Each structure stands twice: as structure tokens, then as C-alpha cells.
């Protein structure tokens, strides 16, 4: 299974050699942070940057994670997947490679965002906060990447996947605690937010920042990541072993 590393290396090289793509993935989340943290007029008791930064981090990893699906679809559509499937390397290493790649990329983006957040006024935290945030985001990235990859293996073409991606990402984001505290939500929205993995990722990071226990949210994310990995692996085997 170690051969997933070569797929990760391939995707990292491709990403690194597309300057506009790389620039956009690194800079756009930072632009969102500046817009949400400094420009949006909000009434909030405390440092709104401290509140909204986890939301931006989670949004970034959400977008990055869903790219596992588009990347898988790209390989499927252009014939790379068939070629890889005829290789002696374990087939699941293709899937693991995609998940690891989008997770690494999401964490690189998250690092840039956390750095910019500090520059523009977010509270300085302990090293463990940043390490813990990376762990939470990595778990969350696995959940989202598995959702994206499973969808791409079920859908027929890139256009359909793009429609799925836009249909899923925005509702997931807005019906979570990314931008609005749980206490400020109407009751109906709280019900949706409670079922939303973004809420747990946000809550876990914010709990780390305020010194509260993040374990419940972390446990939920851990279970979700395991379940989604199993579902995605099952779907991958079904889709590739005809």
C-alpha cells in the first residue's frame, strides 16, 4: 500500500507546476479571511477574527477536500484511471493517494490562513492549538475527500460532479457554525447544523482556542472519517472491479 506515495507525488507535482492554480488555492482562502474578518460588519462580543478564522479554515478544507472527487473524475474521464488499474500496485492506493493529496494541500492552505490571521489581529495561541487544529482539519478533510471521491465514482462526467460539488458545498457551509455562533441560530437551523460535519470541525477548533474540551467533536469526526473511508473504499472496489 506504500505505493500511494507515488500518486500523491504525482498530484503534488501537477499542482505545483500550474502556477495560477497554486496561486488561487493559496490566496483565495486568505482573501476570504480578510473579507470576513475585517470588512464584514458584524456585532460580536470579543475578537470576531478568532471566531471566524476556524470557519475560514474549515471552508478551505471543504473546498480542497471536494477536489478529491474532481481529481478522481478527471483521471476517470481522461483514461488515467484505467491505466493505473492495470498496474500491479494495489488499486486502493489510487484512492488513498487522492485523499492524502487533498489533505496535504488543505493543510498547506490552512497554514497560510493561520499565519495571515495572526498578522491581521487574531489572538496568538499555543503550539498545541495549531497542531490540534491540523489534526482536526486532517480528519475533516478525510471525511470530505471520501464524500467527493464516492460521488465522483458514482457520477458519469465532470459536469455532473461540478453540479454536485456546488450543490453540496454552499449549503454545508452556510448551515454550519462557520459564520454564525450556534446560540444565534434559529431553532430549525440548529437542527441542520447539528448534523453537519462542518459544525463539529468548527466546534473542535474553537474549543481548542478557548481551552474547552474538543474530544466530543473530535470523536464524531473520527467516527465519520472511518465510516466514510469504509463506504468510499467499498464504492471504489465496486466501481473498478467489473
Amino acid at each position: 500500500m506504500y505505493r500511494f506515495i507515488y500518486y500523491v507525488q504525482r498530484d503534488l507535482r501537477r499542482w505545483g507546476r500550474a502556477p495560477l492554480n497554486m496561486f488561487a488555492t493559496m490566496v483565495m482562502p486568505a482573501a476570504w479571511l480578510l473579507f470576513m474578518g475585517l470588512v464584514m460588519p458584524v456585532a460580536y462580543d470579543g475578537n470576531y477574527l478568532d471566531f471566524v478564522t476556524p470557519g475560514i479554515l474549515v471552508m478551505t478544507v471543504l473546498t480542497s477536500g471536494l477536489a478529491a472527487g474532481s481529481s478522481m473524475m478527471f483521471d476517470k474521464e481522461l483514461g488515467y484511471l484505467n491505466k493505473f488499474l492495470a498496474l500491479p500496485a494495489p488499486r486502493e492506493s489510487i484512492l488513498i493517494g487522492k485523499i492524502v493529496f487533498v489533505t496535504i494541500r488543505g493543510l498547506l492552505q490552512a497554514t497560510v490562513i493561520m499565519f495571515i490571521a495572526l498578522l491581521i489581529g487574531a489572538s496568538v495561541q499555543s503550539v498545541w492549538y495549531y497542531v490540534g487544529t491540523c489534526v482536526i482539519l486532517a480528519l475533516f478533510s478525510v471525511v470530505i475527500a471520501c464524500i467527493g471521491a464516492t460521488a465522483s465514482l458514482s457520477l458519469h462526467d465532470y459536469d455532473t460532479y461540478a453540479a454536485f460539488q456546488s450543490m453540496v458545498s454552499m449549503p454545508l457551509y452556510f448551515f454550519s457554525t462557520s459564520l454564525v455562533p450556534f446560540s444565534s441560530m434559529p431553532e430549525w437551523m440548529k437542527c441542520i447544523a447539528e448534523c453537519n460535519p462542518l459544525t463539529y470541525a468548527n466546534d473542535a477548533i474553537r474549543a481548542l482556542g478557548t481551552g474547552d474540551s474538543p474530544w466530543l467533536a473530535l470523536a464524531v469526526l473520527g467516527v465519520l472519517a472511518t465510516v466514510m473511508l469504509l463506504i468510499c473504499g467499498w464504492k471504489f472496489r465496486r466501481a473498478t472491479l467489473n
Partner: protein
Amino acid sequence: MTAIFAQDLTKRYGDLLAVDRLNLSIDNEIYGLLGPNGSGKTTTVSMLATLLAPTAGTAAVCGHDVMQEKQAVRDAISYVPQHMAVDIRLTGRENVDMFASLYGIRDRAERKQRVDDALAMMNLTERADDQVRTYSGGMYRRCELAQALVHDPQVMILDEPTVGLDVSSRRSVWEHIVRLKRAGMTILVTTHQMDEAERYCTRVGIFKKGVLTDEGAPQALTAQYRTVVVIRTEDGAPSRVPDGAQFVQCENGEAIFTADDGAAVLPQILAAYATEGKRVFSSLVRQPTLEDVYLMTIGPVSTDDGAFDRNNFRHVMNRSR
């Protein structure tokens, strides 16, 4: 041990019988699978490359069953699909090195040597460190071949290796394939290019609607027919074809007939045209080619050839990324 062996190999998609009881025995040769689009060629190579599970029958590559010993089959083969799938932002060397790694060659020095050898064999050494997006179509394909032979496979399966290439690139790719065969490799290739199959394949098999209808050395297949008579006309074939001639088909303003003695029957064919008032611009008697054999085997050309070909479109998009 036969390199590629299939017995009653069958693939069914619902009601569609894609491959019907195929029997193959291929060893140390270049074997060409010919047939129109949708005749079952790609389905066959996909089953042999362990990408598709047969519905019935058995197949083995280098003695390994394609269903029971998939891993051993994948270790023994290289599969190059129809649509060129080389990462254009990676260099030629990186592309080949990645495949060497995926084939399990872990020793760094050995891998480097094998990558260098594969690139040299495909005449890519000078451009090995350039990104593939700067390569020509022929170089794309040669890079894919370098990827495929980096682990020294016993069997290479090529699905339409020269599609989309210009004449000189096609020739170059085929010359490399012939060199691989001389080095002892067994090569199974699907192609639509009859002239290439006739020139380079040791044997060919002609598919029609999932059935292997004719098989043999190109020379043996063409020897079945003595002569071909070609009539240039816009009026099709006469309603009554003279005895001793057999009408094959009309295509691109040419009516094609076969005959044991074309020169002898030509005047009668021309007379049949004149009797029916059909105009003839010119006539020709020649030796049959593999294309003639192919056309006689599969029958009239499909009328949907002008339809949108999604696969070809995808291929073009891939090339232009």
C-alpha cells in the same frame, strides 16, 4: 506456456453480447485485432488486462488466469490504452519513473537505470527532462511506451497505439513495437489502420460483432482472394454482377469487386455498367490488400461513422490541456 490464451471468452453487457466465445493463442508475435468500432476489440483487451471480468470462458496471460491470479497478470503485462494518458506537467523522465515505482522497482539505482534504458529505447533521452506538454503527438505515445516497458513486461497490450498520429510518428511507433517483439515480447495490438497491420503484424484477427470471424497471417488472408477490381463511378454497382465477380461494396466513389481473374472479368463488369447506362470514370485490377479482406469480412461500412465520437473528443481535449 502460451503468452496469451483465451478459451470461449465471453463478455455480455445486459442483452449486448460484446465478445462471443473468443478463442486466442498468441505467443512471441505481434497480433493485431481488427474490427469496426464496437466490435469487441477493446472489451477483449480490457479483459486480458484484468480491467473487465469475463462473463464466461477462461483467459490466461503468461499462464496466469485473468480472474484468479490478477496480480500475477498485472505483474507480467503492460497495458497502453487507446487515449494517451501521460501527465503533461510532469517531465518524460518523471512519468516513466512514476510507473517504475508503481511497478514495484524500489531500488533507486536500478530504477534510474531502467528509466534511462526505457527512455533511450524510445529515443526520448534528449527531451527526458522537458515537461510532456512540450512533446509532439508521437513523443507522447513513445513516452507511454517507455512507461509500459520500464518493468520489462512479457506481454504488451496496446489499444490503437497510432490513433491521432501523423505518418512519420506512426512509422516510428511501429518500428519501436517491432523492436520489442524482436526482443522477445508478445504484443497484442488493436488497430483500425489496415496498412499498418498488414505490414507489421505477424498475425491478425478480424472481429465482427463480438465474434472472431477470420484469423491468420496477413499474407495468408490476402492470398484467399486472387484479384480486386475497382471501378470509379458515381452510380454504384450494376444490378446484375457478371459471373466470376463478387461485389464487395461502394465507398468514396469506388465500387469494389473480387474475382479469381480480375483482368478476364473486367470487360464483363464494364459491359454491365454500359448496359445499365451507368458511367464509369476509370477501372483498375490489383492484388488484394488486408483492407479488402477486412471489408469483405465485416461487410458494408457503418453509416454512423460521422456521428459524434465522445472518446475521440475526450482524447483531443486531453491533448490540448
